[in-house]
């Protein structure tokens, strides 16, 4: 298995009373609450953490979000380009550029090709559909974004693999009459593609395209369901069964000297869920396209406005759901191995560690322990007995239903 470090570079230094009063901590919180001197220190710290990861063998994930306290990576290609020059050894995954918000996928392809060359072939390219507050931050129509995302992916792929351009593209969402990116990617024919989704039809399409499927905090059940959709789609299309290297999961993670220490610090990571996703109703349940119309009655009746925002998500609850790995190195290795078994096999674990008020020192300690004492325990694992794990999943589902 492989371990990846994903940091969103959050900005948790806005006064609590401001966050409590703001209807949304993304999209509409004025940037006067972001002190650039603090932001500069945060960039330094996280880039130093990435350098450490490069030395000890943890791969690196970047992403982007806009206009909010949750994320200071405003443009994934910019950040990934910096990481490409700061590191020498590990893989770098951009997960990803918000391609449904960017007006021109060709520029995205060219930026990625540039990073692939600068990193001498260490880039992996991830796609996310986006939505919610990002639609207003990017002034992007939230309707038909799934179709827009696929067309953007198709255009980016063609731009990356074409060697005898220019070519012309006149699609439904994007037109570009002269596509001919320089440089071409370092890797042939292109860097590996990833996509983050738990949407089952999208997982199936990823399967048919052999794109790595990652779940974000999917826990045991949704992750297994998503991976099954991927596997079944390949089987239905008479394609070869996917290896575990096609599957990935992002989870909160903290590795400490002791379980107690890890739980105490891991609790701070839950800030991501308790504070950083607060967003107003127009960006969430009432955003057009947020749910299919036939799902609207259930979503609106049981929607966020009637349910208090989670404010005390317990680390142990998150661990129990397969959304967090936390403990001493042996505990975390055991949790990850158990997760691998319960989701039917997985190669990539993306650890979100530097989150909320977790400090630079705390993050570096966890990375060091993860690389030194957890990663070796995840090598050369025996194959998954899929029949046994399927039976376990059915039993767990039945227990949950009671």
């Amino acid at each position: 298995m492989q371990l990846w470090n994903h940091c969103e570079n959050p900005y948790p230094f806005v006064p609590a009373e401001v966050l409590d009063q703001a209807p949304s901590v993304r999209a509409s919180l004025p940037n006067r609450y972001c002190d650039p001197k603090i932001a500069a220190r945060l960039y330094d710290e996280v880039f130093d953490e990435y350098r450490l990861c490069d030395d000890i063998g943890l791969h690196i994930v970047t992403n982007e979000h806009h206009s909010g306290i949750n994320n200071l990576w405003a443009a994934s290609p910019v950040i990934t380009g910096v990481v490409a020059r700061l590191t020498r050894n590990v893989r770098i995954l951009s997960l990803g550029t918000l391609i449904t918000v960017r007006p021109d996928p060709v520029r995205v392809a060219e930026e990625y090709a540039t990073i692939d060359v600068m990193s001498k072939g260490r880039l992996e390219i991830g796609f996310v559909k986006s939505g919610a507050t990002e639609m207003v931050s990017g002034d992007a129509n939230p309707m038909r974004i799934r179709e827009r995302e696929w067309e953007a992916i198709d255009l980016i792929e063609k731009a990356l693999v074409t060697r005898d351009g220019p070519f012309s593209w006149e699609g439904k969402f994007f037109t570009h009459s002269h596509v001919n990116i320089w440089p071409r990617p370092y890797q042939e024919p292109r860097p590996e593609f990833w996509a983050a989704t738990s949407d089952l039809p999208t997982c199936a399409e990823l399967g048919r395209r052999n794109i790595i499927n990652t779940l974000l905090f999917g826990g045991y059940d949704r992750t297994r369901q998503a991976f099954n959709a991927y596997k079944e789609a390949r089987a239905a299309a008479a394609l070869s069964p996917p290896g575990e290297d096609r599957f990935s999961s992002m989870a909160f993670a903290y590795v400490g000297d002791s379980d107690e220490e890890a739980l105490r610090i891991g609790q701070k990571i839950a800030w991501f869920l308790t504070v950083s996703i607060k967003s107003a109703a127009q960006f969430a349940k009432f955003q057009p396209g947020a749910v299919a119309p036939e799902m609207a009655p259930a979503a609106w009746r049981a929607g966020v406005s009637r349910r208090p925002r989670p404010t005390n998500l317990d680390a142990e609850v998150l661990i129990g759901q397969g959304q967090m790995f936390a403990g001493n190195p042996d505990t975390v290795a055991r949790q990850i191995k158990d997760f691998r078994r319960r989701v039917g096999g997985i190669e990539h674990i993306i650890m979100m560690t530097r989150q909320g008020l977790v400090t630079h020192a705390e993050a570096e300690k966890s990375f060091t322990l993860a690389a030194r004492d957890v990663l070796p325990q995840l090598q050369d694992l025996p194959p998954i007995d899929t029949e046994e794990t399927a039976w376990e999943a059915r039993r767990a589902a039945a227990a949950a239903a009671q």
Partner: protein
Amino acid sequence: MSQRLQVGPLALEVMRRGPNGAQHRPILLVHGSNPVSPKAAFVDLLAEHGEVIAPSHPGFGDSPLPEDFDSMYDLVHLYLEVLDALPDKAVMIGLSFGGWIAAEVAASGSAKLDRLVLVDPVGIKLGGREERDIVHFFNTSPAELDRRAWHDPAARPAGVYGLGWQAGIDDEMSDAELVRLARNWDALCLYGWRPHMYNPQLRHWLRRIAVPTLVLWGAADQIVTPEYGRAYSGLIPGARFQLIEAAGHHPELEQPRAVIDQVAQFLGPTPLGPTP
């Protein structure tokens, strides 16, 4: 299954009200954020002046939404086709977003169009680049939309929906009604997100509107202000502008009698006879 209006390959949901036949002038009602509710009081009042024909735009209500149908261009051609198929010259009344459609159709020109009524239409850009003429429908809280769209939100009639409809959701509403509202909201966004609820070119083509036009505006409209309305009206040759007191963005829902009185005066004696 609701009534249908066949337009090319599309079978649109349609509400018809009032007398029909060759002796009655058709009144084509072009809806705004939500299809015209059969419960809305103004519909029966309007039907005293002709046959009301109120289709639901593709994607709204129970009308289908083809995959390749997503722009104002599509809606304009659709309604030109609807007009073509009517037996007589028609009055077209456009409400809010539907006012934009109606203004576009009238600027395009149709031999079947006799008169035009616009009620708090959106659709044009008047202010500077840092001035917002039209409140953003999807980037504004439902409570704020409700406050801005109605003269008196507390007196909003039951069972009819305008902007800020989310405030009216309660446990009594059926799943079917909620699904319709969700379809309406999605479709409105598909057509109008960007540029938000206007066509940058329409402003300089309004001069082509060649039929008598009445522009009605809720005096308390804070979605698009009466000042915007006066300027809009001023760009249409010969148009008459009239404020409706004690009404916001949906005067036909808040002051149905006052709106229909204005429309009746504009149309002349009722019921309208056949056009020459």
